[in-house]
Structure formats: C-alpha cells, structure tokens
C-alpha cells in the first residue's frame, strides 16, 4: 500500500544567495526564468519546485542538486 507523502523539500537558497554576493531574489528569478514570487515561495518551503527548476537553480550556484535541496520526511511518515 502506498504511504502517504508527508515530507517537504527544504533548501539553502537564501544562504547561497548570501554567499554569491548577496544575489537578489529578482536576479535569481531572472536567471532561472520564473517570477520573484516563485523564488520567495521556494525559499520559504511553501512551494516545491519541479525537478527541472530545481536543477536550474542548482546550476546558478554551481552546486549539485542535493547540496541545494533536501527532502525531509515528517516524523509521522517514519521510515518503516
């Protein structure tokens, strides 16, 4: 039986923007081709980007995908 998906995708975009010369959300949005509001939503973990967008964001920071995004499972879903 399929387990209910209760995890979320966290990310280090805010931190990485800081280390990349305080890149603005607008700059990042323009480089990956989305709106600034979408970057805001992703940073707050309110919106999980598609795999394609996640790769595009990772390439901006010249890091592998898993260094930027992390999938975290809730306690309730467990690892059983």
């Amino acid at each position, binding site marked *: 039986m399929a387990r209910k998906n209760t995890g979320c995708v966290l990310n280090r975009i805010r931190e990485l923007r800081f280390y990349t010369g305080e890149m603005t959300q607008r700059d990042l949005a323009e480089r990956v081709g989305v709106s600034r509001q*979408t970057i*805001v*939503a992703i940073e707050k973990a309110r919106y999980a980007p598609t795999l394609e967008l996640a790769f595009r964001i990772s390439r901006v920071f010249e890091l592998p995908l898993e260094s930027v995004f992390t999938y975290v499972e809730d306690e309730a879903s467990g690892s059983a």
Partner: protein
Amino acid sequence: MNEEATGARFNEASAWIQLLGAVGPFAGALAVIMSAPQNAGLTFFALASATTLTVIIQIVLHMVAAIATKEEPDDERDLAISHAADRAGGYIVSVGLIMAALALYWQRWTSEAQPPESAFRDPILVGHFLVLTLVVSEGLRTLTTIYFYRRG
C-alpha cells in the same frame, strides 16, 4: 529593499477583480430574484443585468491592473495554482450538476403529491440552483487562487 514583501502581480490582481467584481452585481441579482423566485422574466433580467455589469467592471479593472502590474509570463507555480483552483471549482460544479439532476428527478416523482401552487413544482428552481452552483464554483476558484498567492 524588503525582499520578503511580494508585489501585486497580474494573476493575483485578476483573482481579486473576479471575486470583488462579481460579488456586488450578483448579490444585487440574488436579492431581486429572492423577492419573486417564480418570476422567470425578472430572474432573466436580474441575471442578464448582473452578468453585463460584471463583464464591464471586470474589463475596466483588468485594463487598470494590466497597466499597473509588470507584464511577465506565467511560470510553473502560476500554472500549479491555476490547476489547483480549477480543480476546486470543478468539484463544486460536479456536485451541483448531480444535485440539480437529482432535484429534477425528485420534482418529477413527487409532482403528483405537490399542490399545484407549490414552488417545488417549478423547474426554474433547478435553474436557480444551477446558476448558484456556477457562481459558488467561480467564487471558490478565485478564493483558492488568492489563498495560494497570499500564502507566499
């Protein structure tokens, strides 16, 4: 510069316009219809007036919104929000259509038992219900859109 504040975008502005631009005219139409629910002519006039007024209000306000907001193409989050809102509205339409069909069957089956002057024998009540379903569906669709944009 405060980067946490999300600016008004056309899609969100459009959702607000659709919601608020329809509430006034259709609330007025509802008040008129409820004053004489079996008057088909008045119902038609009220709905036609409300629809016309809503269209005019929305055209004008959308033009203002298009001028006031920066033009940018929809991205994947915009499409995801649009799909979620359409799904929410679609549920209401589905339930409303099924209930309207059941109401028609019920009217047919019980027509002999109802007195001739009973409002329950009047098919226009099902018409009212169908229009209400569409209005509620559209309201829920726009509310869902606004919720997801406001959530950030």
